[in-house]
């Protein structure tokens, strides 16, 4: 039970809408029975492609080594349900994500892992990315309590849906304990379901 209210760290920008989980962690790295070691392969194919074009992906840029907050754009993490994607990002060192929007499964995975994924406006995501690109040593603060992201002169609104926000603020982001505590009630609900009682009226 770790309460998460604010996180401050240097940030890493990954630009682009609709960055899917196949790009975050290509399927060949899913042949594993633990999540260990995935961090090294985050965005592997995107990185290689940019390298071939003589460009540098943020995850290869020495200026962003050690960053703890990822700043992305719209529909981040769409596609497959693979938790390997947020796990790879987290194992690389990211502790919080700021983006315009997320796919729901990706967002749910982040909550379950204790990685807050905050939402900001389109222009604010862009402004934060530009600020960090201009000054990689800038400290970015994700404040779940005030629902703000602060970075130097910038202060922008950053939201989380109420449920997950409460989970982070109360340390209950790992739902498992509560779910298991509820087992007697779970059994009562199950006993009332038509398909578990021969559809008897």
């Amino acid at each position: 039970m770790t309460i998460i209210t604010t996180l401050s760290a240097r940030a890493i920008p990954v630009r682009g809408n609709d960055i899917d989980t196949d790009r975050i962690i290509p399927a060949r790295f899913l042949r594993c029975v633990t999540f260990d070691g995935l961090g090294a392969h985050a965005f592997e194919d995107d990185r290689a492609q940019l390298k071939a074009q003589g460009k540098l992906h943020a995850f290869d840029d020495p200026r962003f080594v050690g960053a703890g907050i990822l700043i992305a754009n719209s529909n981040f993490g769409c596609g497959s349900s693979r938790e390997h994607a947020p796990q790879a990002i987290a194992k690389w060192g990211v502790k919080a994500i700021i983006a315009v929007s997320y796919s729901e499964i990706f967002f749910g995975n982040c909550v379950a892992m204790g990685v807050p994924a905050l939402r900001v406006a389109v222009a604010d995501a862009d402004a934060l990315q530009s600020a960090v690109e201009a000054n990689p040593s800038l400290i970015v603060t994700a404040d779940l309590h005030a629902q703000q992201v602060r970075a130097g002169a910038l202060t922008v609104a950053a939201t989380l849906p109420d449920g997950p926000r409460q989970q982070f603020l109360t340390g209950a982001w790992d739902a498992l304990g509560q779910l298991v505590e509820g087992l007697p009630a779970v059994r009562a609900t199950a006993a009332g379901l038509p398909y578990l009682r021969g559809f008897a009226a």
Partner: protein
Amino acid sequence: MSARTLFDHVWNRHRVRTLPSGQDQLFIGLHLIHEVTSPQAFAWLRERGLTVAFPERSVATVDHIVPTEDQSRPYADGLAEDMLQAIERNTRETGIRLFQPGSGKQGVVHIIAPEQGLTQPGMTVACGDSHTATHGAFGAIAFGIGTSQVRDVLASQTLAMGRMKVRKVQIDGKLGQGVFAKDLILHVLRRLTAKGGVGFAYEFAGSTIHGLSMEERMTVCNMAIEGGARCGYVNPDQVTFDYLKGREHAPKGVDWERAVAWWRSIASAPDAVYDDVVAFKAEDIAPTVTWGISPDQGVAVNENIPAAESFPVSERPGIAEAYAYMGFTPGQPMAGTAIDVAFIGSCTNGRISDLRAAAAILTRHGGTVPARVKAFVVPGSEAVKKAAEAEGLHEVFRKHGFEWREAGCSMCLAMNPDKLVGKQISISTSNRNFKGRQGSPEGRTLLASPAMVALAAVEGRVTDVRGLK
């Protein structure tokens, strides 16, 4: 807020309680497991000293990593073999049923549960796989979950979830000749976009939807997730009941009559309230092919690849990226695009009716796949394979130059040995055209219906199936 929809009914029935966070604790009636997203969940359970609460409500199979050519054990790929051994051990130790290759019941998880009658109306279904939406075709509320949530379901048979909004996607009219369920959903995605459904459950309704077979409805619901909707569903009707009747796990005898009565009662009421309603006309839908790197980037086969100006300004960087990755120029016609690989299979279009539709095109066309094209069929399950072979479909495919393989996910995501090479272009009946999806970091994917893939295979290029005599 929605009311009196099937979604509301099923959600309320399965809600155990409201958690302090405001989320609901939701009972999961059917939990499906596969080898890729489960080993870490079982490991976490062991670490915490927890057991599986309702082992009889889970079913497991192996699909993502199984080879489709040589399935002898141990697998040539040691990592794949490790994963198979992990699921064998995890299911054995926890008393969960596992459908192995050779059992006659193995296949893509979203194909085997319906064909065995495990998926039923009014259930909640979860699986560590985004295409769990498929099961919504039966009037179930079915969603994909991550591995932490797989652990939650194993330990408690529940999930902590926030309620979704409900959008009714109404489609009326008759689909034209050569237009299939796959075209319908690609068309809907193109209009509603890949993120338009975030926060929603999609209720597919209207005369077109209820005129579809169960297998076609599964194709539609399967791709709800490509539109951002975590689940999609169709209200159960006589087509649903006829499909289920007599299947292994379907209710029997007096239970059957009571089940049908309950299933009828949970459908969305005529006065149901939706958070949003959108409507489409079946007549407007043409055979559709994707040209880009997101499943909503589709065009009618007789259209040209759209110009960047036809997209909102905020989308244009992504559109430019799609042109560059695919090597296509805006304005270029979709028809005539040369292909290197044709793949028929996956949980979208790997069922018997899909294979029949593809085989029928090959027979009508009469030609064979040119030497420069690699074409192969991967049945979605062992049962599909057996049924196809009983009808002689495998001979039709082979005669026209296709390879005939064992059941699995195969080149839908290329975790097994089936992969694109270099910049090859594949036309595929699967559901995702993401960069690198089919195994080569530069590989390119065009999504289309089984009929369109079969025709493209023998023609060597994208061809409008409506022109085939």
